[in-house]
């Protein structure tokens, strides 16, 4: 067992979340944007598990489980959409999909 300040684990979760956020804002490739969203979800899960470890409660890990289930559902639909978009536009650039005219 670890006796770290809660600040350190929470700060790590914050750093990972901000890296994912910058990734979503900076990249224009859909695959990289989906990966950055995964990074952000994972950072949120880390925050939940760290808080659950701080109070020795199982609730943090349960929230992490829900986050993983949601990430799996989101990424399956998201990747299917990426395949559709690539099939129609022959590119993964998000700006190419800006007109919404199939």
């Amino acid at each position, binding site marked *: 067992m670890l006796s770290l300040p809660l600040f350190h684990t929470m700060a790590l979760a914050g750093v990972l979340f901000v890296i994912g956020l910058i990734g979503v804002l900076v990249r224009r490739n859909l695959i990289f944007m989906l990966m950055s969203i995964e990074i952000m979800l994972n950072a949120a899960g880390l925050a939940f*598990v760290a808080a659950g470890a701080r109070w020795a409660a199982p609730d943090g890990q349960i929230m992490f489980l829900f986050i993983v289930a949601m990430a799996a559902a989101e990424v*399956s639909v998201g990747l299917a959409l990426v*395949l559709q978009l690539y099939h129609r536009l022959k590119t993964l650039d998000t700006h190419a999909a800006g007109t919404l005219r199939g």
Partner: protein
Amino acid sequence: MEIVFYPVAVVAVVATLMVIVQTNPVHALLYLIVSLLAVALIFYLLGAPFAAALEVILYAGAILVLFVFVIMMLNVGADTIAAEHRLFHTGIWTGPLVLGVVLLAELVYVLMTFDARTAGGAAVEAKAVAVAMFGPYLLGVELASLLLLAGLVGAHHLGRGWNLERPAGGGA
């Protein structure tokens, strides 16, 4: 044992940074797997072995395999990497980077002023997690299963259209 945490945290941050600056999606994916494994080790250090196992099996094992399949189907070549270089120049970086660093500074400030006592106590084993999950959180489990079903139906629907609309003569 505390000393183990800081190198792992550095590995996680560096690997995650490498994910968002890569231009080849496969390399970014491998860095993302390293980052997830580092976070799994942190879960284990925090006394959450069940969450650590799930991180490896579900995140690094299942979700990233989905990414690998899609990248395989998208047929990434040298020309797409060159196109990615064109889309990803320095001018795009600065604005979001500055805003993100400001956000991070505020977050760290709030956490520092928060009462930061030491983490830790007993480890929360898989049994305690399961007892709570199928007790007070049962409705959440059912809703998560419905969400996964909806994701399955949606992905099947979208993926089927992609196969049917393929032009008859050409490969792709």
